[in-house]
């Protein structure tokens, strides 16, 4: 168990280092550097001052040394300055991360609950109408891109009800309504529903597909026949033997689904004007702010690596084959 966790950690560390190297490289091959960010266009700065500034910032040192210095800053939570505007990237991210967590957390919860439940139902009724319908749901979830779903959701659940019936069913975007009479928490939840549902769709499909496959696989294992040969109730066989085995590996999907969740959030936040880090990444891209994009990249990659680490360790805890050697 401890060895298992240690091995996972040993895998995670080089990945994180690799991510920082990639990020650092990208940020440095991109045109524009912290100096040009500090120096306003049109201002009267002499080349000699720029050289001095470079020296002060350590930019004239060889790349590997700069990488180590940069890494030291990153570890302390300093992600550098935005190329546009010059604000602290870490601060900008810190302001937006809670919003992204609210959105992704809600979406993930919906995906897990809905996906696992439907996956179990679908597997136990294999080849039924429900199962066939679920197959279509799964393929749609993988196929329909989040931006298309977002546009459809805004149009059919926000625009059309208002156009046809004059009802403000759900807000089309934003996080809060400044003129709302509702309590702020309710208002924010109100704004959260649509983007969270759109973001949850693909995840639901992933969990559904995985759960269904896992249950179907476990259903035909020998120990299930053993359980039945003991004369146990079908319900007991399913809960105690099939589901307990089938749902264990689903834990790891939590980690595996992180990258697509983040990519989905980038689109959903942008299209719903939800002020999270995804929207920040797109805004930075439009302003050609490579430093800021790389900050988002570093943050999300770390989140992905950590999420995988956590789910692997969680899996080790729940599976006795790993917990007890």
């Amino acid at each position, binding site marked *: 168990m401890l060895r298992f966790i240690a091995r996972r950690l040993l895998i995670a560390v080089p990945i994180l280092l690799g991510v920082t190297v990639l990020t650092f490289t990208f940020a440095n091959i991109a045109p524009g550097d912290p100096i040009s960010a500090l120096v306003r266009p049109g201002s009267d700065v002499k080349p000699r001052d720029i050289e001095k500034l470079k020296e002060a910032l350590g930019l004239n040192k060889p790349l590997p040394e700069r990488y180590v210095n940069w890494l030291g800053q990153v570890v302390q939570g300093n992600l550098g300055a935005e190329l546009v505007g010059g604000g602290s990237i870490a601060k900008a991210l810190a302001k937006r991360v809670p919003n992204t967590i609210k959105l992704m957390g809600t979406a993930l919860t919906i995906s897990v609950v809905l996906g696992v439940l439907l996956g179990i139902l679908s597997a136990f009724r294999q080849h039924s109408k429900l199962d066939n319908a679920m197959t279509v749901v799964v393929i749609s979830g993988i196929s329909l891109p989040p931006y298309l779903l977002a546009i459809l959701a805004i149009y059919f659940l926000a625009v059309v009800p208002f156009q046809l019936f004059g009802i403000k069913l759900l807000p089309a975007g934003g996080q809060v309504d400044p003129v709302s009479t509702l309590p702020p928490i309710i208002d924010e939840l109100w704004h959260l529903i649509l983007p969270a549902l759109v973001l949850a769709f693909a995840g639901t499909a992933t969990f559904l597909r995985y759960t269904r496959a896992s249950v179907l696989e476990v259903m035909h294992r020998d120990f299930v026949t053993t359980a039945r040969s003991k004369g146990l109730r079908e319900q007991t066989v399913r809960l*105690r033997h099939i589901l307990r085995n089938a749902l264990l590996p689903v834990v790891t999907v939590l980690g595996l689904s992180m990258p697509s969740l983040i990519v989905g959030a980038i689109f959903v936040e942008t299209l719903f004007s939800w002020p999270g880090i995804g929207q920040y990444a797109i805004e930075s891209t439009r302003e050609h702010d490579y430093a800021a994009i790389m900050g988002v990249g570093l943050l999300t990659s770390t989140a992905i690596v950590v999420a995988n680490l956590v789910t692997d360790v969680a899996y080790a805890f729940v599976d006795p084959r790993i917990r007890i050697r």
Partner: protein
Amino acid sequence: MTLLSVRDLVVRFQTHEATIHAVNGVSFEMAAGETLGLVCESGCGKSVTSLAITQLLPAPAGRIEGGEILLNGRSLLGLPEAEMRSIRGTEIAMVFQDPLTSLNPVMTIGNQLTEGILAHQDVTPAQARERAVELLGMVGIADGQKRLGTYPHQLSGGMRQRVMIAIALSLKPKLLIADEPTTALDVTIQAQMIDLIKELTAQAGTAALLITHDLGVVADMTQRTAVMYAGYIVETAATPELYARPRHPYTIGLLNSIARIDREPAALRPIEGSPPDGTHAPEGCPFAPRCAWRLPTCWRENPLLAADDPVAPVITTGPAASHLVACHNPATPDEVSAGRPLRQGFVAAPNPALAALNPALAVASAG
């Protein structure tokens, strides 16, 4: 007294590609406390027969298409699921081939032992655990109390199979079905396991249906043997009788293909070819393509299982059971020891070129 009676059992599997004729009209009976061996190569329908008896065929592909299964005179087919459930475990229990895959990997063996007891008997969990420790002791696992909390992967293969046997015998069933109980185990443990099953079933008066491809195991353990081929029983007799006087060419082939200390290794003679895959409805004798004794009629008529001695009354169970064989041209005693037909008109020896081929290799390259 007849405990189990299987009559004309037909089982088919419906896959996307084809219908598999797994069992094609199998009949046999078992008396209370009797041990019967059901023997053939893999893919001959013996495991399917055992799953059919407990009605645990993989749904919806596997279906019993005909025949009757009676336990103590009561028909099991068509019983409501709840009643069938009350029979499983308490009257018929099963031990499977691979104890690693047959035990739930994420449940302690204590819970796997007690869940059957708790489902069928009115006992407290504490009592069930007590009984579990007792059962573990019975199958030769000494520190039972400590073992209850362990998981299958922490035990050795032999230990796991002991646990399986303990689970199967936990409710004192009338019939134990053991499906290749030793195949997945080390050779050194196989004999121990056979002895254990033999001893425990004899003690409790439990009838045992032993399903195996290994005639050696059958000889050690059973009173009576039935040989199956392609979903049919082709020969059955009391075990000593069957070994002494086999009549069916397939039985002879099986006996000749096992290594025995009392024979020259050169006498080891594998049966050439492999059993049909069951995708076609049987026509004629299913063994005809591999048979050296075949007659023209073998291609057309599937021989019925009939008494070797047409005059004597047919006895279906017990040590005095009749010798039955399904063959148009059974082997004579001197042909048995020769392992090939000696009469006029039959080929003298298998084609030497073909005999040189290792059948295992032939199959591997074809697949």
